């Protein structure tokens, strides 16, 4: 119905939606501890807060959210529930501190710091002993949920009706920025991948600011969602990276060349031994990757019984010399149909690898 109205023509050209930035901060204490020589936590936090302020300064309607991806849980640092917010807001020692500061900035700064400190206060040593990873999947899930709630209009009136029925009335441009300091996420492969695909569907770019550590999954996250991936060579200058690479919002990025690093490793790692494979076997149900067909033809991830009879001897030891005598030895393996082989390495397109 909107398209019939002639005004649609005009409203299209004014596409200035406010933007929402959800920042996921990896708060693994070990990782920050190892980083303390190059990038102390307070400095990193200050850089991030300045970056958030910069984002807020662009438009009065811009919004921000900060999520901590901690060792055992993920939680919001800003905006928080009222109790902690009150504690953070009124608990500021000097209400007249920086009286000239833009109020919005100060609220964010105070709340993020207060809830971060609260989070660390609640963390016990016992908890830290046996968990050294970070709950990135949970944090991504929170971020996507928050974005979904905020971005889809539900203004109660006609707009809400259309939004509920048609589904997609987008009021804000959203993006996720992950400041990652710790390493592998392989244990959360399935949930992380699901989050990535959800973000891709919703057209939410996931930017990765990789301060330390190595994660293939996060590279793929930024690549599939068309976000920016940046592995910091000089973590000391975090603010410089944040301000130069991650400040433009999704609407602006269409007109810019993104500084994303292009040599993304697309090769898959098998689930069984975490080896990077050129040719692998994929479960037809849950898409888990294996370097050899799993034992007993049962997928280790989803427990599906796989029919591998049609695979024959595929992937077995290659027969390069025809020797009639060895025949009997080869017959012992009987393998797979629902396995498809991905011969990705053999069909590289002819683009120059520059």
């Amino acid at each position: 119905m909107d398209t019939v109205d002639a005004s649609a023509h005009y409203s299209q050209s004014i596409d200035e939606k406010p933007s929402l930035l959800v920042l996921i901060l990896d708060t693994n204490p070990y990782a920050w501890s190892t980083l303390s020589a190059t990038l102390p936590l307070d400095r990193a936090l200050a850089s991030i807060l300045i970056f958030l302020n910069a984002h807020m300064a662009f438009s009065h309607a811009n919004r921000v959210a900060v999520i901590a991806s901690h060792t055992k849980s993920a939680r919001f640092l800003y905006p928080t529930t009222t109790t902690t917010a009150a504690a953070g807001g009124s608990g500021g020692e000097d209400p007249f501190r920086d009286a000239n500061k833009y109020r919005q900035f100060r609220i964010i700064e105070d709340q993020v710091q207060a809830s971060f400190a609260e989070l660390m206060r609640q963390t016990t040593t016992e908890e830290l002993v046996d968990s050294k990873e970070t709950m990135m999947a949970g944090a991504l899930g929170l971020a996507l949920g928050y974005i979904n709630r905020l971005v889809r209009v539900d203004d109660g009136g006609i707009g809400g009706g259309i939004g509920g029925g048609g589904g997609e009335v987008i009021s804000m441009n959203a993006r996720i920025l992950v400041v990652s300091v710790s390493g592998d996420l392989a244990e959360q492969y399935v949930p992380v991948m699901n989050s990535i695909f959800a973000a891709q569907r919703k057209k939410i770019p996931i930017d990765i600011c990789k301060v330390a550590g190595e994660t293939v999954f996060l590279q793929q996250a930024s690549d599939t969602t068309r976000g920016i991936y940046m592995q910091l060579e000089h973590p000391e200058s975090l603010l410089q990276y944040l301000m130069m690479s991650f400040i433009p919002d999704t609407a602006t990025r269409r007109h810019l060349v993104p500084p994303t690093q292009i040599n993304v490793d697309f090769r898959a790692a098998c689930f069984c031994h975490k080896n990077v494979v050129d040719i692998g076997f994929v479960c037809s149900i849950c898409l888990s990757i294996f370097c050899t067909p799993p034992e007993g033809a049962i997928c280790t991830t989803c427990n599906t019984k796989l029919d591998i009879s049609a695979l024959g001897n595929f992937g077995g030891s290659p027969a390069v010399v025809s020797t009639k005598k060895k025949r009997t030895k080869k017959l012992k393996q009987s393998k797979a149909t629902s396995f498809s082989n991905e011969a990705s390495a053999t069909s590289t397109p002819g683009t120059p690898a520059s």
Partner: protein
Amino acid sequence: MASVAKGSASYKKKDGSLLLEKDSVTWTPANAEAPSLKIPVSTITNLQATPATVAKVMIKVFATKEGGATEPYVFTFTSASSARMEADVMKEALTTAIQTFKTNSSAATPSASAGPTTIATSSAAASGATAAKLAGKLTDWSKTRLETDLELQKSLLKADQELSTTFSEAVLSGAVTADQFWSTRTHLLRAHAIEREQKRGPYNVLATIKPKTVDNVVRMSLSREAIHDIFDQHPLVKMVYDDNVPKLPEEEFWSRFFLSRLFKKLKGDKLLPTDNTDPILDRYLGRDDEENSRKRRKIEHVPRTMDIEGNEQNLSQKKGNAPDLTMRPTRAENVPIIKTLNSLSLKLVDLVAPTDTDPNQVDDQDERYINEQRLVDLHGDPEEERIILNIRDQRQFFSASSNADQARKELYSNLKPETVLQEIQKTLGESNLNLLTALSSGKTGKESKAQLSKATTQIVAAVKDRREQVLSSSGLKHKSGGLPANVFNSVTLVHATTNEFLRHFWLAFLSGDEKRAGDITKLVNSLKNSKERIASIAKTADEERELERARRKKEAQEEYKRTGVKPKRKTTEVGGGSKVVEELLAPTIVAVDKALGKYQAALGKADKGSKTAAG
């Protein structure tokens, strides 16, 4: 010599006579005694004939020669009076002969499954198809049939230039056999076969005929098929033609027709007072048999849900209510274009035999339409039939930790949780950060300045890299990287063929099938050759580059001599060369090396294995 059918026909533009005997077709040149061509019926795989509407009467016989290749023989029937009849007799006789042969020989190969050959001369074939395929419907899209259908493969190669070059490179002059080549391309064959099966339907013929005025004379080209279509779609024209043509020369009839008001009316154009009048043809203007004479498709049973017959009786126009807004008597010759087009469309639809309805299902139609009209969203949600996917906790099977895992563990292992936590709590527990002072914590001064500029360099480098990619993918930059066209072509060709070899190599290599060991050896040789070819292309590229550079230099010098202006350095710079070739083919070379390496390793292993077995 029991001849079943005979006719005078030319073969390869020589006159002669075609004779069908009991088990072979022979053709004898006009001035010779003995037949010069003999095709045994047993070898005939397919038969094609031109449809009845085409002037040229031809029969095409496909026969397998020794070695499996099919060869078409085309006979044109030359008899002035009875060519069509002779051809029909010949066709009929041949068809029965082939059929009897096939039923007799039980070993019918799948490739010769042309089946009972019935003539598919539907009205649709008259419009577009030049030759009605005699073979019955080939709706068998199975892999084996597609891969053995040489005819289909040929036509696909003809249609796809790129595939054709790959084919000739990889198969005709390479180690890949045709079977292997097609075995990885069944989907292409299937798509092509389906595409070929589709027939073009009837179209508005009159609209496509456009008289051209050359030297004040109206000229047009009119094919026999077009005339046939016109008669089919407009029975009125056929009537006019039948009435007048003996009296009027045919050519004159058509030229007058296309200028007449009748033509305009049938086409749906508006008649103007300035239009030519024609004493003969205008007589037919008033007739509206056009509408009534069309062949209606018979519909046996109309589902009650969509039967609007009853509405006819309530039609307001028939009861005298304002049929026309202008309230003026309509002038017959100015039929609105919409009406004409509607009637034409109806006719076209009627000409097509319905293929989407199954006559056996007529009874269920009512039920179907009622089902279609149900409001699905008013019903409750259907029960979900999902398979529950149980994902196991993955930690347990990742416990077989890899190196990276180990490294991470080690990295954190010498950190004590208590100290780590205290450190962080201390940092955060203090009063709120002053952003500016916090920023300068840690290193300060010159060193941090250097770090900042290094960071900037990293970002700018990433942007530069990215820009290169964006430019090359959007086509703003030359794709060929400055290579001359012929070199670039050979680069794409060698890339395509090498990929082909690689694909077959991996298929054979990983199959674990000993029977394919011979194939692997052949393919490895091809891969080695590919590497050599890449090297030679690189060399040619260098040579071409030198030539181009010399030419430009010479040009620049001449320019300098002529004008006295020193040429800019840029004009003598030439892109391309072996470096670009190597860059373009780098992934290919890597892939080939990897394949060869794996092969060598497997070979070494096999050798060792056989030695230990022997020893």
